[in-house]
C-alpha cells in the first residue's frame, strides 16, 4: 500500500464510529485535509449495531447513510479501514504517526457481488451481532458496511477455503498474499475518537452472565431486536428460543461500582427505557418489563421519554441494585434476588430474560497510548499535554450519540486551530 499523503496540515482522526466520522467530516467540509483511520473493516462503529436510538426511536443507519454520503462525496477526506495507530511521536502541529494496516485479503476491485461468500463454507463468529450468530468466513461486515467491500477472515487464509474464495471472485479482488503493513505519516493534529466497548459482564459474577443462558447484555439485546440481527428481530431467548416476554433490565451493570467502573455510563438508563419499548413493540400488552435501578438518569428532555415509559402499564420500576441471579433449572428462567429499597421489600422474581445494562468502558483501556495523552481514572481521554491531540465522543466521556457528536464537532475545531497555527506560522 502506498502511504497516503499527509502533512502537518492534515488532521488524523482515529476511530470510524459516529464520533470519528463526524470529527473527520466537519473538518473536511471546512476544506481541511483529513485522514480517518478505523481498526475494523467498516466505518460505523457501535452505533451501526444499535436497532433504534432513544428518544426518537429512529434508526442509527439513517444518519449513517447521510454521513457515508458525505464521506463518499468529499475529496478532502480519506479513510483507511483495518488500520490502527501503533505509535505517535513529535509534538503539537508536527506528529509522526505509525499506522499498522491489517490485511483484508480483498482489494479495491471488490464489487461486493458476494460470490466469495457463496463459495466458502467455513463460518466465523459474526462480530456485527456480538457473536450471537455466525457468518461465512468471506463476508460483508454488514449491509451498510463502508467501504462496501468483502473481508476474508484470516482463519481461512492458507486453507482450501481461502482458495475457494479466491477462485470464486470474478474480478480478481481476493488477494490471499496480502501482508500486514506499517506506514509512517506526518500529521498536524490528532483526534482520538476511539469510542467505547461494553463492560465485560463476566466480571460481574453474581449476575451469572457466563453461567445462565438467559442473562444477556444490553448490546446483545439490541441485536435481538434488530431485523438484521440473529433472530431476524424476534425477541427470543438464547436458552430455548422461546419468546422473551417478561424481561428484566438491570441498571448499573458494571457502572457506578468501584469494583468495576467507578463512573456512571450515562446512557444505560435511557437505553433500558428504550428497550422496554422493544418488548412492547414485540408483544404489546402481553410483554412485561421491569427495570431495577439506583437512580433513573433521564436528563433534559429525555425526561419525557421516562415519563411516557413510566405510564406504560407493561413497565415497572424497582429501586434496587439486584444482588444476585440464580437460574430456575426447570425452565431456564433467571431468578433475581434483592431488596426494593423504597420501603425495604425483599424479592425473588423470575423473568424470561435478563438484560444487563452494561457500562461503557473506553475502548483504549489496556491499550498503550502515546505518553503525552492525559486520561482520567476510568481511562477516558482528556487530551494531550501539548494541546495537539484531543479526545472526542465516547472516548472522552461516557456520552450518548447526540452528545458524542457534539463533542466530536468541538474536537474537530480544536484540531483545526492547531492546523491553522501551523499554516500561519509557515506563512509568516
Amino acid at each position, binding site marked *: 500500500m502506498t502511504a497516503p499523503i499527509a502533512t502537518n496540515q492534515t488532521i488524523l482522526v482515529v476511530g470510524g464510529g459516529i464520533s470519528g466520522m463526524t470529527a473527520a467530516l466537519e473538518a473536511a467540509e471546512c476544506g481541511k485535509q483529513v485522514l480517518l483511520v478505523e481498526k475494523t473493516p467498516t466505518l460505523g462503529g457501535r452505533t451501526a449495531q444499535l436497532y433504534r436510538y432513544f428518544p426518537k426511536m429512529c434508526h442509527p443507519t439513517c444518519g449513517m447513510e447521510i454521513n457515508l454520503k458525505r464521506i463518499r462525496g468529499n475529496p478532502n477526506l480519506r479513510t483507511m479501514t483495518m488500520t490502527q495507530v501503533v505509535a505517535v511521536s513529535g509534538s503539537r502541529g508536527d506528529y509522526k504517526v505509525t499506522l499498522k494496516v491489517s490485511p483484508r485479503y480483498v482489494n479495491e476491485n471488490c464489487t461486493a457481488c458476494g460470490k466469495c461468500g457463496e463459495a466458502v463454507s467455513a463460518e466465523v463468529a459474526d462480530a456485527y451481532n456480538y457473536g450471537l450468530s455466525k457468518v461465512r468466513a468471506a463476508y460483508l461486515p454488514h449491509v451498510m458496511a463502508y467501504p462496501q467491500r468483502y473481508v476474508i477472515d484470516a482463519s481461512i487464509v492458507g486453507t482450501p477455503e481461502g482458495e475457494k474464495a479466491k477462485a470464486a471472485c470474478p474480478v480478481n479482488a481476493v488477494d490471499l498474499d496480502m501482508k500486514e503493513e506499517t506506514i509512517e505519516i506526518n500529521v498536524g493534529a490528532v483526534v482520538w475518537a476511539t469510542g467505547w466497548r461494553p463492560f465485560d459482564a463476566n466480571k460481574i459474577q*453474581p449476575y451469572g452472565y457466563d453461567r445462565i443462558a438467559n442473562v444477556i447484555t444490553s448490546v446483545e439485546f439490541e441485536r435481538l431486536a434488530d431485523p438484521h440481527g440473529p433472530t431476524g428481530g424476534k425477541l427470543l431467548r438464547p436458552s430455548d428460543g422461546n419468546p422473551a416476554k417478561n424481561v428484566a433490565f438491570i441498571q*448499573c451493570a458494571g457502572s*457506578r*461500582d*468501584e*469494583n468495576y467502573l467507578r463512573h456512571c455510563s450515562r446512557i444505560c438508563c435511557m437505553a433500558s427505557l428504550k428497550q422496554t419499548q422493544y418488548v412492547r413493540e414485540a408483544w404489546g400488552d402481553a410483554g412485561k418489563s421491569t427495570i431495577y435501578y*439506583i437512580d433513573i438518569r433521564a436528563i433534559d428532555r429525555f425526561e419525557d421519554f421516562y415519563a411516557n415509559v413510566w405510564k406504560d402499564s407493561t413497565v415497572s420500576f424497582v*429501586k*434496587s*441494585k*439486584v*444482588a*444476585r441471579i440464580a437460574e430456575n433449572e426447570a425452565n431456564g428462567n433467571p431468578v433475581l*434476588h*434483592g*431488596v*426494593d*429499597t423504597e420501603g*425495604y421489600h*425483599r424479592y425473588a422474581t423470575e423473568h424470561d430474560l435478563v438484560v444487563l445494562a452494561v457500562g461503557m468502558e473506553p475502548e483504549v483501556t489496556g491499550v498503550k497510548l502515546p505518553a503525552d495523552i492525559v486520561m482520567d481514572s476510568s481511562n477516558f481521554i482528556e487530551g494531550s499535554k501539548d494541546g495537539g491531540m484531543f479526545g472526542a465522543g465516547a472516548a472522552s466521556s461516557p456520552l450518548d450519540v447526540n452528545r458524542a457528536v457534539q463533542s466530536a464537532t468541538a474536537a474537530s475545531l480544536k484540531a483545526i486551530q492547531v492546523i491553522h497555527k501551523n499554516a500561519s506560522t509557515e506563512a509568516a
Partner: protein
Amino acid sequence: MTATYKNDFLKEVEANVEDGQWVKMCMQCGVCAGSCPLGPHWQHSPQKIFMMIRAGKREEVLTSDSMWMCTSCYNCIVRCPRKLPITHIMHGLANYAHRLGLAPKGQPTREIAKLFWDNIVKTGRVNELKFSLAMYFKDGFGQGVKNAMAMQGIGLGLMKAKRLNPMEMLGGHTCKDKGGIHKMIAKAREIEDRRKGLSGH
C-alpha cells in the same frame, strides 16, 4: 421515635463505631440487603440502617436487633459498589449498642457472644463443655436439662470422636500464661477505648 434529620447521630456513630465514617458514603442501592444470607431475618437492612442513622433515628438503630444478625459472610462487602466495610460497621454498631446498654435483651447472638467471651477470657482457651452447658442452662435449670437431653446424641458423638472431654468440667485445659492473656486483653481494651474516645467501659 421520629427522625430529626440532624447530623448529631451520624457524628456520634462516626466517633464511636468502628468504620462508622463510612456510613455517609452509602448511595442506597440495596445490594447489601439483597446479598445477606440472613436478610429475611433482619428488621432493617444495612442500607436502611445507614439511612436511619442519617435521619437521626438513634434509639431505633441502637436498640435494633438487626446488626446482631450479621454472620460475617462478607457478601455485602464484596458486592458493595461504594466499598463500604458493611460487616465491620454492623459489628461496630452492635458493639456500640452493647456498650451503651441499648442492645436488645435476650438477643441470641448477643447471648452466645457474651458466653463465648466470658468462657474464653477465663483461661485463654475455649472450654467446649462448659460453653455448651452454659448455653443449655442460660434460661434456667429445667430448660437446661431439656436442652441437654435434646443434644445428648450429638454430645455422645463428640465424645466418641474425642472432640469433647467430660473431664473438662474439672477446670479444663488452659494456655501457658493465663495472667499474660488477661493483661493483653485489658491492654487491647484500653487501646480501643482510647481510639473511640471513651474512658473506661
